[in-house]
């Protein structure tokens, strides 16, 4: 499980001398009895594209609204660029936000929308002119400058909202589900545009999303939230390959979870999970107490499906193909094991469909190595 950290050039979180641009220190936010954010600590670094990911109601939007200044923490401090932001009202913060609803001013043109924040700063006329043109160019909206928001398409509105929030060159840009209103194809295109613009401007982006694919695509780091707490903060690859809990593993992508009792054996763990079947052998990075109840998590693509057991791989189980989901590039097989457990395994369709190896009701072997899955204790 080699962390891709060494390959990455941009990894300020690995460098202890790097100063974070945002620091949450024990931040708690309560609404009446409800605790939206619970004693949260977090560091975000300059130039990051940071994603807050979680189901609705996990506190991610509250966290963002506290950064923008629309909510104040009940406890704890938010330090932005070395300064506690608590006493600073939203209109004085070097932070801009792109709203989920875009919140474009309907009575103003695209140009006036983008210039709104600059005019409030009291910037000179010709400088405003230049800055708005620059933003229009960046978001490819030049020919729509004179239009009103209701005269342009959804994707264009999204770009106006982005241009408007970037116009003041904020230290930090907050994006609240920025692509939620777009259809899938446009969303994918826009994700790459966002990354491009983030790189060009060098602004620190914090994005709130419930779409794990979106977070994985755009973010340098992802924070998975649940019930007001951070469950894991890591790079997309880190979150996917080494989730620290069943919650994260299950939230990001597809995963098979097998419960069992662990018996440590050198640097390996043997997990007894079904009577009469061989224990699962897996490597574990952290020490596990003998007899501990553990979850073994393995992604479908890490399992190799074959007709004969593959002796190269440490784990081999036999089962029967119940379902095949054909997705074009890959096929996912739902296989029932002898003890009734269902396991998903996906295989790349390297061959044409007519020559596919397995079909419904076939007896197959599922094989995986001792490093393919993860042993999770929570």
């Amino acid at each position, binding site marked *: 499980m080699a962390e891709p950290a060494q390959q990455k050039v941009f990894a300020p979180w690995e460098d202890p001398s790097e100063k974070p641009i945002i620091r949450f220190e024990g931040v708690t936010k309560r609404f009446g009895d409800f605790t939206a954010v619970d004693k949260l600590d977090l560091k975000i670094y300059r130039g990051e594209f940071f994603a807050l990911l979680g189901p609705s109601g996990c506190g991610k939007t509250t966290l963002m609204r506290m950064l*923008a*200044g*629309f909510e104040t923490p009940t406890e704890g401090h938010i330090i932005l660029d070395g300064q506690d932001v608590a006493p600073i*009202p*939203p*209109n*004085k913060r070097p*932070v*801009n*936000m792109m*709203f*989920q*609803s*875009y*919140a*474009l*001013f*309907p*009575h103003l043109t695209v140009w006036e929308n983008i210039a*709104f*924040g600059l005019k*409030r*700063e009291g910037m000179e006329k010709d400088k405003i002119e230049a800055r708005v043109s620059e933003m229009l160019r960046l978001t490819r909206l030049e020919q729509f400058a004179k239009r*009103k*928001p*209701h005269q342009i*398409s*959804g994707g264009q*509105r999204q770009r106006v909202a982005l241009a*408007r*929030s970037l116009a*003041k060159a904020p230290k930090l840009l907050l994006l609240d589900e920025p692509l939620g*209103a777009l259809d899938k194809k446009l969303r994918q295109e826009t994700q790459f545009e966002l990354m491009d613009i983030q790189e060009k401007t060098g602004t620190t982006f914090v994005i709130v999303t419930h779409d794990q694919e979106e977070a994985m695509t755009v973010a340098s780091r992802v924070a998975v939230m649940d019930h007001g707490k951070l469950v894991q903060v890591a790079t997309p690859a880190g979150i996917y390959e080494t989730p620290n809990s069943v919650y994260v593993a299950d939230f990001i992508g597809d995963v098979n979870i097998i419960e069992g009792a662990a018996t440590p054996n050198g640097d390996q763990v043997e997990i007894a999970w079904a009577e009469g079947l061989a224990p699962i052998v897996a490597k574990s990075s952290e020490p596990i107490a003998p007899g501990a109840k553990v979850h073994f998590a393995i992604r479908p693509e890490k399992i190799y499906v074959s007709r004969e057991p593959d002796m190269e791989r440490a784990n081999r189980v036999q089962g029967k193909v119940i379902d095949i989901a054909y997705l074009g590039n890959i096929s996912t097989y739902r296989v029932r094991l002898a003890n009734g457990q269902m396991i998903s395994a996906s295989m790349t369709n390297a061959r044409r469909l007519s020559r596919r190896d397995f079909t419904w009701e076939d007896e197959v072997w599922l094989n995986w190595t001792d490093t393919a899955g993860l042993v999770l204790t929570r």
Partner: protein
Amino acid sequence: MNRKLSWFNVTSLTLGFAFLYLPMLILIIYSFNASKLVTVWAGFSTRWYGELLHDQQFLDAAWVTLRVGVISSTFATILGTAAAYVLVRGGKFFGRTLFSGMIYAPLVMPEVITGLSLLLLFISIGLDRGIVTIVLAHTTFTMCYVSVVVSSRLMTFDQSLEEAALDLGASAWDSFRLVTLPIIFPAVISGWLLAFTLSLDDLVIASFTSGPSSTTLPIKIFSAVRLGVSPEINALSTLMIAIVAIGVITASLVSKGAIKRQREEELAGNRT
């Protein structure tokens, strides 16, 4: 829409409308009567309208009414809009329910009581009755109507627009002036028109708060009728009906058309 109405529907519709509009229709018809006697039809004429224009008393009263209407409805619009904004946007501050109840209470308060209490107030603070007192009284009783109209618009207003303005560095006043007000403006205008119309035809409160030099048209008409209905009064009343009708229709058209268009724009401004 083109459903054929049954005889029952036609009858009830006719009865209802006759009940509502027959008296006014008769008034309008008799305002074009050539005869000096109100009850005898003597052919069509616009003579009484002409005479109205030369009657200085009526013209003075009309001028007073107009000034009172414009000034009081302007004050009522400012106060009513401010009240609506605070009540809708202020969140759950202490005493909010009490305040909103108190704003709307004058809607159901008998006019006689409003008039009487204002009269007592003016006497106790030693304010001479005249145009100023009528303006104050009319502002008082029309601002709640403005507040109702504006607050119903504000409730459907997307609050993230104001947050966006704040986020972009606007002060609270700027965000109201540059974002909220332009968007709710049609509702504010229709509130003003409503207040103006109400001020125009108020008799009870005006008669409590007016002085000798400040007779409004409704007071003038009322006192003239006590000496007998003249064709001139019919003509004047017809003119007032026309003005009020134009005011009410414009108010409803402004609010309906513009609010609908703006809602569409606002929706478009958000999502598709």
